């Protein structure tokens, strides 16, 4: 079974007396090792879809299945445990704890569960090395560049070896060179290390690093296509067409 499946997912928000349908029956499957970019205009529902996949919010209708577990069936505590062990989250604003070092921020999901073992320490160091952060491991976030902070955040998402990695606009706060580094890193994680990644973005230049693109419009999945078929320009055009 695919590590991430959304089945006929509905989600409605209420703004005062007005009901706004954020997702209208989205069905989507992400295969193991796949790198999927979810694209859409502002307010299209792409972030809501990611939140549902992460179990950060519950669908009104439909099911979200991660690693063969229906997230809609879990209570808060079980869902929290599940998220920690099976889902890696990467935020647009990095969201590092300012008082912890890079190494500690990276190890945070494990530290939330238990005291770090020798093998955990080893794993953290290897990951820091892989992310090119060894020399920065004792630095606090305010001493790191944006790119370095996001790499730490990626490391934090990887440390528990989750079934899926969900990234919400991971390059939104980065300059172009750091964006490139982060995108290449995500592509390698999927391509080389077989990680399943879903990334929300509205930039075609970022989506180009994914294997597949899913386009959401007005809460519905309107298109899903292979990236390999497109260059940057045609990808942008295809995306614009989907939005029309």
């Amino acid at each position: 079974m695919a590590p991430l499946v959304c089945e006929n997912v509905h989600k409605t928000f209420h703004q005062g007396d007005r009901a706004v349908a954020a997702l209208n029956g989205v069905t989507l499957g992400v295969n193991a090792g796949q790198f999927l970019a979810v694209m859409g205009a502002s307010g299209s529902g792409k972030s809501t879809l990611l939140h549902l996949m992460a179990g950060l919010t519950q669908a009104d209708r439909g099911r979200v299945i991660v690693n063969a577990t229906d997230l809609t069936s879990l209570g808060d505590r079980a869902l929290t445990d599940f998220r920690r062990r099976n889902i890696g989250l990467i935020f647009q604003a990095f969201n590092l704890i300012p008082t912890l070092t890079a190494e500690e921020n990276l190890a945070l999901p494990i530290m939330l569960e238990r005291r770090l073992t020798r093998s955990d320490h080893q794993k953290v160091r290897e990951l820091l090395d892989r992310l090119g952060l060894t020399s920065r491991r004792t630095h606090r976030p305010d001493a790191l560049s944006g790119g370095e902070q996001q790499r730490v955040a990626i490391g934090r998402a990887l440390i528990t070896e989750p079934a899926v990695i969900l990234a919400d606009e991971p390059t939104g706060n980065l300059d172009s060179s750091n964006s490139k580094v982060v995108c290449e890193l995500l592509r390698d994680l999927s391509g080389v290390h077989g990680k399943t990644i879903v990334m929300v973005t509205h930039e075609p230049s970022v989506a180009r690093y994914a294997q597949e693109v899913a386009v959401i419009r007005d809460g519905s999945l309107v298109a899903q296509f292979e990236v390999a078929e497109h260059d940057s320009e045609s990808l942008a055009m295809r995306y614009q067409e989907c939005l029309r």
Partner: protein
Amino acid sequence: MLVARLAFSNLLVRKARSLLTVAAVALSVSLVVSVTSGYASMEATIFRMLSTFFASVDARIIRQNDAQSGVPETLLQQVRADREVRSAVGRIEYASGLIDVEGRPIVNRNTIVIGVTRPEDHRVELMELRAGQWFDTSDGDVCVIDQVASLIIKDPSNTWGDESKPGVQVGDMIQLPSPDGNLSLRVIGIVHKPKILAALQPSVYVPIRTLQNWPATGAKGRFSAIWVDLDPNAEPAQFAGRWRAKLEEIDPVLKLKMASEQRGELDKNLRGLQVASYFGGAVSMLAAAFIVFSALSMGVNERQRSLAMMRAIGAHKGQLAHLVVIEALLLAGFGVALGIPLGLLWLLMLKWLFSDVLIAGIYLSYGGLLFAAGASALAAMSASILPAWGATRTEPLEAMVPLADGGKRNRAVAWAVPGLLLACADSLILFVSIRPLLQGLGIDQADRLAREFAFYAHLCIGLPCVMLGFFLIAPLMVLIVERMVGPIVAVMMRVRYPLLRQQLTGGIWRSAGTAAALMVGMAVFVVLQVQGNTVIGGWRIPDKFPDMFMTSFKLGGLTPADMEKIKSVPGVNPDEILPIAIASPEFGSSIFSIRGAAVMPEATMFFGLNPKLALEMMELEFRDGTEQQAVELMTTRRRHILVTEEFRQLKGLKTGDTLSLKTPRHGTVDYTIAGVVWSPGIDVMVSSFDLGKQFEQRTAASIFGTLEDARDDFGVEGVYLFALNVMPGIQKEQLADDIQKYVGAWGIQSGDVRVLKSIVQHQFRKLIFMVSMVAFSAMGVASLGVANTIMASVRSRLWQYGILRSIGVARGQLLRLVLAEAILLTVVGVMLGLLCGGLLAFNAKQLLLVMTGYDPPFSVPFGTIATGTAIVAVLAMLAGLWPAASVARRPPIALLQAGRGAA
């Protein structure tokens, strides 16, 4: 481990806030440590004074209710013959006037003349002998005096014993006055006593036989007391049992007091003070708790995004709550670690300031230390409950949105409803008695139990509920003040109201916490002032009342012949001299348990007098029965008494009911109530100022009986107190001198009751002011919270301030804007404090009625409360000045950069 690490590092990130919060806890802890240790040191001083200067023997034999009449000298030999007695000596204590070195009587200054059996009585040698030596015989015209007596005799104007001035020296002669012939004594030694003790009661030590042979004392063949030291192998309990039975046979009014009982009595008397010392600490601790709450709330608000992220990547709600609690405990831990040495520093200052008083040195109260540490931890944990709960409510989704939503102020207002309900709990406890319920259940002593329930429930449930209730009301008050008072403050401070709007409500719980901290001190101040003034204001003397009260220290008291002599003194109205015998009986049944005795003493004061004359001289309002009926019953029948309205309220008794009293002559006997009189506040004054302290136990509630019953039941042979009316135009001081001359009882003290009342009121007000220091301490602690809150508010608005400065807002305007916020916060704290204090004062008045039956009208010292309010306002303004000045000083670009960083 991670949680502790995060908690610790969070505190380090906000250094100023953490420091201020730790300082608030430390200040509270130091107050607890210094106040409780100060009390322990004072207690040690009292016991040291007792052992050095008063009776510190294993046992004493005295005459109950009439100590001045003394014990027969013949008893001494019997005591000495007891196999368990190591030594026994007689002592005489006699109050005498003084004559200065020029031979002139010293007006209004008495001395205590102590007859000592030497060389057997070694106890005097414990005193520090500054010059000369002790006499080694029980005869001879010699004396040893203390330093203050020496100074006063030399120079009567040296009232407080200024030791830089000259005094009487060893070898000089002094005289003790008596109409029958002064007693001339050669000073052979000068001892040094703590100044406070010596100044209150200058002492002259004289060989006991010399004193007995001096007719003025009337002590021929008797002692004031026999002091007994037991053999080291003796069984005190057996000795006490044996001698109590023996004394009962010899004379039931002779009583044996064991050292342990003395200590127990003293402990009981000091218990109220001890409770007050802990209560004072608890008040400032409460203020600190609110500041900890405020700091934690700020932390949770500011870290909403981090907390949400932690939830998103797998932190449980409990872990976030744990994080906040650990932070609170760390703050408390640092506060305790800093507060204890600070408290010790205060103690050292106390020792330095009062070295002459604290003769036993400084004693560290380990109970106080434990209380400080425990209460800090408890306060911190309590303060963390709401912020911890707030942290658990952080949604993981908030990590994904650009800015976390910190504003939940409208929901916070909903807390006002449970707050109001909690605030009413104390009133419910005090105004709705459980007595009918207990009576309905057929429980014995329902009245006492209901009263005890009211007291303890008020203390343990009511007061905390009021504080918690007002704290929950605080957010609503913040909203109201910001909307209603904000525009006025804006005009006053010349800032635009829209800029001031939401300054407080933007962080409503941190504002509420700080306002609550300010409220604590203010409320305590209000309740102390209102209650104190109400009690003292309600103490009214009837229009018709004796002109003078006089006391004599003559051994054996004033005889009928003495009273006849007083009648012949020119200026005295011979038909209006009222001898008053005083006894202190215990209630027949254990109406109040030992535990209850901390609240209400188990003894009363029995005033024996001529009822007809007394009611002619004093116009008392009868609340039950009539004057005529009462006088008839009391004069024609035995064992009839008048009780006060307070007594009736307290005991629920009425005319015709009986009251059991323990008497030394006839055991427990029933007295019948002949009438109930209204005597505003007499009982409260008796209880508050412990007029019955000569009886060695605390007393409350006065009852009025006859001289005959005082003599026959309580063994009061001598009368030491009398009231009299004088002819118009007579000088009262001159009259007192004349009476002394006529009666020959030197040592008579006189007082106009109105002057006495004024002195008592003055002392009481001083006491209220002293106790109000607790409130001021709490206000001081709270001002740290104000600084904290303003700093947090400033920090969250750096960007906004940067923009304001960039578009032309001047430094002064920015300073005024921040200060306006401090003013608004102060207004919230003061309003809460006034409301909370008002409610507590209202409840305290009801508590007074429940506990003492005293129901005076409210008396609010508006001027004093206004002064207290001004002090809070100044403290808060000063606290706000630092963050205001620091933000106003920064250039616009620095504010913009710092603001971007903070966001």
